């Protein structure tokens, strides 16, 4: 879907991205993470040609983007930024309709799409479509920002630290919504963050960058259990490593089928971290597990939860 081949970008004497090769497969939720100055935002902004590379080739859906008109390329991609950047003089509806309007969609189709997106992002369409951005809270504004980016049904969504400025509760809610949107639409998402918990929660694959170079790519579990070096170990944390480890696996993977146990059942899709919290809260070492329809699936034992959870 997106492929970097030997891409370098310098700003004066500073090399922001250094001979980077990276590929993002269709349908991935790819998180780029790294410390400040690691080049993660530069990498993202090269994907929609807001920044031009000094060397190397970037392909999107097989096409060398240097040959495309920047506007054409960008209208095919959603773009969400930390500072949101809603147009203050336009209503929510017109903000969301921005790209469809540029593409010349018929009015009725735009209107339906706005309703659909507001509903998808848990905003009451009739209440908010006519509101101006200054009338919304920060979390609502960024919901509109995400809706605007998704409006023209892009194959790729680029997100640059979209939730970093929000309070923890709003951030958590928006993360859950992004996970649901990714699952429902299959849109390829490239998401930049400096927050490892956010990366582990959302990513299907993580790419860790440092000083413009790729340090490691892998699934959240790979990154936790097989960190490439000390920089990665620092990023994933040393104190609460164990809890992060539990957070990336689901209850279903450790459930013993056929058994029964008393207590409120855990959801099969819950993380092991949530399961541990439930066990501590109930003072028990085993809890029943139920599937999405509430049917019993078996039992999760504390011993199984701990198995294989040590550092490799």
């Amino acid at each position, binding site marked *: 879907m997106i492929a970097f081949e030997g891409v370098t970008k310098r700003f004066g004497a500073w090399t922001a991205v250094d001979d980077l090769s990276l590929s993002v497969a269709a349908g991935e939720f790819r998180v780029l993470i790294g410390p400040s100055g690691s080049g993660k935002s530069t990498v993202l902004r090269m994907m929609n040609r807001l920044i031009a590379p000094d060397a190397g080739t970037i392909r999107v859906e097989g096409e060398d983007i240097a040959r495309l008109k920047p*506007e054409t390329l*960008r209208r095919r991609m959603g773009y969400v*930024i930390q*500072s949101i950047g809603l147009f203050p003089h336009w209503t929510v509806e017109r903000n969301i309709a921005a*790209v469809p309007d*540029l593409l010349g969609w018929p009015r009725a189709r735009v209107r339906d799409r706005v309703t659909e997106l507001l509903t998808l992002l848990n905003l009451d369409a009739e209440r908010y479509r006519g509101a101006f951005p200054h009338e919304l809270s920060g979390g609502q504004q960024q919901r509109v920002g995400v809706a605007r980016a998704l409006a023209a049904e892009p194959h790729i969504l680029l997100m640059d630290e979209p939730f970093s400025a929000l309070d923890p509760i709003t951030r958590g809610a928006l993360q859950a919504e992004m996970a649901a949107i990714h699952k429902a639409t299959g849109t390829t998402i490239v998401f930049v963050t400096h927050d490892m918990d956010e990366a582990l929660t959302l990513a299907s694959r993580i790419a860790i960058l440092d000083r413009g170079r790729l340090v490691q790519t892998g699934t959240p579990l790979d990154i936790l259990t097989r960190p490439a070096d000390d920089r990665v170990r620092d990023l994933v944390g040393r104190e609460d490593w164990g809890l992060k480890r539990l957070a990336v696996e689901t209850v279903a993977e450790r459930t013993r089928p056929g058994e029964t146990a008393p207590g409120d059942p855990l959801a099969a899709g819950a993380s092991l971290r949530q399961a541990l919290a439930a066990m501590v809260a109930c003072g028990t070492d085993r809890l029943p597990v139920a599937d999405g329809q509430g049917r019993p699936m078996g039992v999760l034992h504390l011993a199984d939860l701990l198995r294989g959870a040590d550092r490799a």
Partner: protein
Amino acid sequence: MRGALTVLLTDRLILGLLVLAALVLGMPALKPLFAATFPALDRPMYEADGFLALTLDHLALAGGASLIAALLGGAAGIAVTRPFGREFRGVLDAVAAMGQTFPPVAVLAVSVPVLGFGPPPALIALTLYGLLPIVENTVAGLESVPEPVREAARGMGMGPGAMLWRVELPLAAPVILAGVRTAAVVNLGTAAIASTVGAKTLGLPIIVGLNGSNPAYVIQGAVIVAALAVVLDAGFDRLAARLTRWRPGAA
């Protein structure tokens, strides 16, 4: 009906227009009043030109100069904030500042030997005079567009034209309008002085009155200019409110 009347009488713009129309059209009817106030005067009413014609000429001069200044100043302000025009920013600032340094009377005086008497030197002087506030405010307005808004616009695929018309100009409009307002207000007053170089405006009765020690003429010209200023001010208020409906606190 009562509601409509209340609105009519409390609306500054409508009220101003009514007073203006009454003064312009009804001035000759006030002749007895001026005769009674200034019994020493042989001719208490300016009758060499109609007040309607003077008002229209006055408006044409001040409005024309403001419009030309808005078009030129706006275009120049847009040009120097584009990538191709950035290097002319300093030159433009200098030229516009110079236009403002000369008192309008001086520009009038200097342009007469070149262009002769009549409306052309007046139009040029007023246009030059209106340029600075419009250029300055156009640049300031365009530069006040928040960077995240620009980045979002670029990132979603707006080209430079769409960005200017859909985002930058609407967001800068209130500030640009304030510049046009300053220019228009100054021009409305200065147009009166333009009568000294032979442009027929509402300044004519004022100047004739001053020369001939006829205070009635001065008052007749001055009250209409004052009414025009009130209408202009109320009109710009109305326009500014329309352009800022999206702002916090707007109704």
